């Protein structure tokens, strides 16, 4: 359980990151703000609850985070600034790019992250290293067949150090996912591929924290956390709008 003080602290951080992301988007209207706003609490939980195991002296993370839904992950730069890992005036790309400090993968194209994560997991298995590999995907991204190739592979090889987090914001680009291809029942699908599954409110940091910790107790399976989120969380104009993926905001649109 996350104590109340820590929870409050992380909620404030999430508020700040959310606002920074919106401000960034106003100046960079091609950035996918609705997709980014559903990831905030997930990213804050991973970084600030130390699931990534930050080593302050060496200025690096022991565990991996692969940003497979790259178009929604630019908020990560505001988090990395908080960790003093990038300079204040560093130019932020709208899709995170590989760098020397943290990001290993190309993240603009969907469906790749979990497979690459499987390769890293195998490498760690060979070297007998107990490092965790978190992979953040979108729900629409689950339409890509390559993701299911990786899901089958990870389940068969019992890659227990893989933690897949699905930002399940229910909307892809043109419509609600349930109207395009209904992804449910997700739990049954993953369980049938030998994964351990949990589902939670993706904007509740305490729930995210608790469920990730529960998953990490499982010894012999890859893990998936289905994080139910709201696309465009925090901006009324975007929330529950099936076309929010492609919408840009102006200053007047922001209501907090």
């Amino acid at each position: 359980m996350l104590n109340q003080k820590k929870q409050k602290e992380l909620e404030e951080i999430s508020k700040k990151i959310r606002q920074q992301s919106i401000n960034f988007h106003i100046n960079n209207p091609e950035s996918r703000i609705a997709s980014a706003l559903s990831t905030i609490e997930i990213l804050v939980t991973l970084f600030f609850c130390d699931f990534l195991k930050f080593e302050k002296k060496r200025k690096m993370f022991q565990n991996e985070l692969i940003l497979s839904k790259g178009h929604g992950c630019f908020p990560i730069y505001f988090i990395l600034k908080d960790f003093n890992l990038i300079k204040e005036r560093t130019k932020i790309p709208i899709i995170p790019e590989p760098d020397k400090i943290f990001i290993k993968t190309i993240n603009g194209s969907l469906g790749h992250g979990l497979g690459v994560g499987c390769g890293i997991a195998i490498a760690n298995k060979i070297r007998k290293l107990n490092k965790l590999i978190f992979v953040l995907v979108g729900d629409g991204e689950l339409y890509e067949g390559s993701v299911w190739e990786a899901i089958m592979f990870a389940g068969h090889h019992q890659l227990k150090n893989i933690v897949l987090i699905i930002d399940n914001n229910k909307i892809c680009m043109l419509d609600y996912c349930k109207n395009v291809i209904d992804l449910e029942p997700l739990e049954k699908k993953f369980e049938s591929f030998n994964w351990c599954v949990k589902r939670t409110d993706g904007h509740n940091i305490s729930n995210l924290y608790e469920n990730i910790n529960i998953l990490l107790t499982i010894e012999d399976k890859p893990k998936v956390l289905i994080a139910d989120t709201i696309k465009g969380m925090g901006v009324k104009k975007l929330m529950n709008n099936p076309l929010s993926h492609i919408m840009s905001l102006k200053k007047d649109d922001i209501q907090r």
Partner: protein
Amino acid sequence: MTYMMNMRDTLISYIYNKMKKNNKIVFITADLGSPALDKLRTDFKERFINAGIAEQNLINISVGLALENFIVFTYGISNFLVLRAYEQIKNNISLLSHYKKLNINLIAVGTGLSYDISGPSHHCLEDISLINTLPNFHIFSPSDNNIALLLLKKYFYKNVPKFFRLDSKPLPDIYNVISDFEIINGFKELKEGKDVVLITTGFSTHTALKIIEKHKKNWGLIDIIRLKPISINLIEKIGKYKYIATIDESFINKGGLDSIIKGLLINDETKKILSFGVLDKYPLLSFKREKIHQKLELEPKSIINKIETFIRNI
């Protein structure tokens, strides 16, 4: 009849021996086997991975391993390895290699018309143009086991993405001796001749040798063993010839061997170039290679006739 070893078995045997001494080498297949692979997959259970018939995941897993500083050998049938997983190859190998050092070696078996009787779904006429388009790749196109092995040895530790395009059939030895300089140059002048030079790669080098030796044509022959990066020293080697004939089991005018050579010679108006390959239509043929070549006019007699007619009509 002399037993002819297959190029993939030559390479895999070498990789096996390297794996005994170096635990940073891994081998991943898309469920494709070979006699030499049987020993590898038994003796190196931890570092041999069968990804199943899933080429996209095969490439992605390979990339994950290469990011962790493994030397990765990724093995599959040419057509499926290249085309099914092309975006993974572009995104996670070519593009990512601009940021990270990746020692990934794609061992693609069945280039050109190798899988002759399996038909057009198994033919790979596009691999040169597709991989040539991708930055940072080295493309190796050996014509016999000796060259295949020398290329692998020379570039083993080089941290760049590499594409080895191998014929699936055992091919006779061509090379007894080749200098390190020639390996670095990426081509070998197998025969010096007059007026006409045949420029070939892989299997087509054997076709060209038949033209020169069996049909006794006094033409030059240059075997391109590294298609990318292509050596500009080739320009000087071609210099003395007036007529250049490129031969390959791939599409012509679409970025293959012929386009690479034409690109080198683009500013030389004195050269006349003739290209032999496949025109803009898939050969709907599932015969033995010799018969496909006859149908496509890629066998020695047709090539000779066309070159001689071409010269007469200039």
